[in-house]
């Protein structure tokens, strides 16, 4: 009984602190961890972007290779017309990667909170539909619902809602599933046994889900822009 109670306790997203305004605004733990990730990313930016040179130093060459690789990857999916969306996709990728890996240093991953993944999915679907409208114009965008055959239009409209739902649930479910299994393992066998599992559930699965989220967003955009 204590095991299931412990598990239930881990599942709910905790309130970190309450702002004493308007009768108390609760601030979730995921928000606080997100602030930490933001501070970390800003720090990295300050370290790596300071005094860039025309002839790159070693540090700068590493960063240039990484950024170039990311650009090439997205350019391969989106093509020339989607170049403007690459910074957003890369930013979401960095945030998701760091937040999925934050379980390693003992923090609760923000992506374990369904509100975070739902917000990211809504942002993604807005950008996806916007990319379609911008490419085809509003009329062409409405018309694209009736392709390839008109009677499929209800399914196409349904897809607008299913896509963010599945993006949100996939990320949330994967991270939550990994988290629950890790917590169970830590209760059952706290010493040495969780290490290999941690490599799979915290590192590998987190990075794969980051890749899948960003990749699917890019693919959906490409589909609407064609």
């Amino acid at each position, binding site marked *: 009984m204590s095991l299931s109670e412990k598990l239930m306790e881990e*599942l709910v997203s905790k309130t970190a602190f309450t702002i004493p305004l308007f009768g108390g605004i609760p601030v979730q733990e995921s928000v606080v961890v997100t602030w930490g990730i933001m501070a970390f990313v800003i720090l990295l930016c300050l370290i790596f972007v300071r005094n860039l040179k025309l002839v790159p130093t070693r540090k700068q060459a590493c960063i240039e290779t990484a950024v170039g690789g990311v650009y090439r990857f997205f350019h391969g999916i989106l093509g020339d017309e989607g170049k403007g969306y690459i910074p957003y996709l890369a930013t979401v990728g960095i945030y998701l990667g760091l937040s999925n890996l934050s379980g390693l240093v003992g923090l609760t991953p923000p992506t374990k909170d369904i509100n975070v993944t739902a917000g990211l999915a809504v942002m993604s679907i807005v950008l996806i539909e916007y990319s379609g409208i911008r490419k085809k114009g509003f009329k062409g965008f409405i018309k694209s619902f009736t392709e390839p055959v008109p009677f499929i239009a209800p399914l196409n409209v349904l897809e607008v809602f299913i896509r963010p739902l*599945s993006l949100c*649930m*996939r990320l949330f*479910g994967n991270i*939550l599933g990994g988290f629950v299994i890790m917590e169970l393992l830590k209760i059952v066998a706290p010493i040495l046994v969780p290490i290999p599992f941690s490599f799979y559930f915290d590192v590998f699965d987190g990075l*794969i889900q980051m890749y*899948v989220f960003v*990749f699917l967003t890019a*693919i959906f955009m490409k589909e609407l822009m064609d």
Partner: protein
Amino acid sequence: MSLVALGAGIAVLSGIGAGIGIGIATSGATDAIARQPEATGEINKTLLLGCALAESTAIYGLVVAIIIMFVL
């Protein structure tokens, strides 16, 4: 409580389909890589996409199971 737990267990059975699907996809991918090693990058990309889509049914099952445990 026991019936609720049973329902959650049945909901998670959706993982069977995802397991079979990902297995078939991976077997196809290994076949394809063995035949055409130079196309490994493309095959990997497609495989990962297919796995992510196939896996989502299992994830839906998990989410439904968690909702059952919490709400009922």
